[in-house]
């Protein structure tokens, strides 16, 4: 029936308006398509290619209290259908970020989600508090994949205890919507997600990059100066999708899905698996207008199938008759 109605609409020249707004906890976004932290700069770098006002939000690169120099180079290595990076969260520190990047973003008509980084719980809290004083910040995304200096460099996000500790402290320090970005480098990501929910996170986003490495067979050296780095791009999509599905089916808070999204169809998959919104990362490097194409594609996907609201896709996966859900 849906198909028939669609044909009639096309024939009469009336096209159905798809409602692209989505709700991510307390946030209402005009589109489910947001940028993935660290892949879009502050948005300014892509302003020639992208109409920022059509994005659900700009998610900025990770921001810490002091300036971080980042890692030595080479910082990237391309791998099959993906790339490794070890940028090392280079950033100018929260004050410089507020003065330049955030000041510019504040003049754009798009919600700003700031990705927060820290080496200690105290650093996360300080950054979160400082950002909470800025009216142009719509939400915080806590990057718990940072090395925990107090715990010998292991990422906060790899144990429930450390992840809960940092989320609890930041929750107490900010009234802004709080999204916790989960690391996939764990045994059971949904366990961490549930802990985040219990600590008062408004949403979770996943996945951050998967740890990987690559070796140059001419020099026999690792291709990244830091030996290991984070894998992103289409290579990780099936893993990311599985994790989003697992988390979405076990938590009550909204999920922002990402990992290898290159096309509108990829975005649809993440939404069907349970994501309320999707983030586009590595795809921006391949096509600087990727976010716009994915937005347009999502809209026409819904229009063609007579789906009035893009949010209707969220969690609409049809369970396998024989499979378990």
């Amino acid at each position, binding site marked *: 029936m849906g198909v028939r109605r669609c044909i009639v609409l096309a024939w009469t020249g009336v096209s159905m308006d798809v409602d692209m707004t989505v709700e991510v906890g307390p946030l209402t976004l005009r589109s489910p398509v947001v940028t993935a932290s*660290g*892949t*879009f*700069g502050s948005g300014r*770098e*892509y302003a*020639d*290619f992208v109409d920022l006002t059509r994005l659900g939000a700009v998610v900025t*690169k990770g921001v810490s209290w002091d300036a971080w*120099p*980042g890692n*030595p*180079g*080479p*910082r*990237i*290595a*391309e791998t*099959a*259908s*993906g*790339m490794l*990076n070890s*940028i090392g969260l*280079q950033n100018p520190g929260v004050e410089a970020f507020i003065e330049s990047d955030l000041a510019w973003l504040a003049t754009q008509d798009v919600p700003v989600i700031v990705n927060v980084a820290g080496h200690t719980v105290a650093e996360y809290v300080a950054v979160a508090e400082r950002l909470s004083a800025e009216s142009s910040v719509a939400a915080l995304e806590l990057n718990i994949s940072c090395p925990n200096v107090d715990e010998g460099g292991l990422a906060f996000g790899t144990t429930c205890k450390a992840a809960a500790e940092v989320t609890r402290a930041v929750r107490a320090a900010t009234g802004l919507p709080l999204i916790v970005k989960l690391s996939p480098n764990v045994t059971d990501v949904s366990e961490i997600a549930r802990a985040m929910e219990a600590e008062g996170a408004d949403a979770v986003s996943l996945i951050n990059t998967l740890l990987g490495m690559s070796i140059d067979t*001419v*020099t026999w*050296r690792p291709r990244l*100066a830091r030996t290991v780095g984070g894998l992103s*791009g*289409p290579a990780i999509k099936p893993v990311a999708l599985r994790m989003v599905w697992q988390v979405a089916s076990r938590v009550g808070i909204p999920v922002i899905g990402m990992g290898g999204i290159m096309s509108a169809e990829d975005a649809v998959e993440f939404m069907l698996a349970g994501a309320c919104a999707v983030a586009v990362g*590595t795809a*921006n*490097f*391949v*096509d*600087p*207008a990727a976010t716009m194409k994915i937005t347009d594609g999502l809209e026409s996907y819904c229009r063609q199938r007579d789906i009035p609201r893009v949010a209707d896709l969220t969690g609409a996966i049809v369970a396998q008759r024989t499979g378990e859900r």
Partner: protein
Amino acid sequence: MTPDPQAARTSLERMRVVKNVQLTEGVGLVVFDAPRIARQVRPGQFIHLRIARDAAFILRRPFSVHRVRGDLIEIVYQVLGVGTRALSLAAPGEVMDAIGPLGTGWDVPDDVTHALLVAGGLGAAPLGMLAEELSAHGVAVSVALGAPTGERLVGRELFESVARRVVLCTDDGTVGRAGFVTAVVDALLVADRPDIVCACGPEAMARTVCEKASAAGVPCRVSLERLMACGVGACLSCVVSTRTGQKRACIDGPVFWADDVVWESVDASCWRGQG
């Protein structure tokens, strides 16, 4: 020679391959019909080229614009890995897209009267357009061009047609002087009294040229290469350490003032230094 404000806005251009030929073993020349980039590009700028779609490799590859002829842009490339191998197979008529023109150009100051261009291997690629433009503006151009062997002296004819003096150097002595191109720089600094040096090539070579220019008190511009993902300043994969902090080779470079570069930290991230 001064930046064209029109070039400030970057965008994507779909470009048709007009010609793609092997110049010598492992080095190719590809010509694209790219009217917008051809109009906007300044010497030293590059394009970020998407070579293949639906392939196992997804990232773009940066290439300097070697020369412009009307609507056509020329790229000289060395076949190194998966991307440049795919590029070498591109047939005329094929369409690829590029972001560009990107980066700072050589941006040689207007009052320069004599320029010394020093190129090692494929480092000659971004210097071709510069040599042409400088000589068209009445600047006397000297070129020191080095390569492993005579056949790989990229841009030789171009330089010989516009430069006042071209000194050729090959590692194997097949053409010109035997030895590294850096060996002739001191003599040229004295003989031609350039008021600017522009260098591009393997990082060790470029650094030596910069040090020689600095010792002679001649300002020096150097084009540096880094692995690049986004090409537009967003990902921070391409940083270069400078006296004023970490800079992105893709938008704050690839051409830097040599005196600003902090060489100590410039290391293995340059492939030309490896090979």
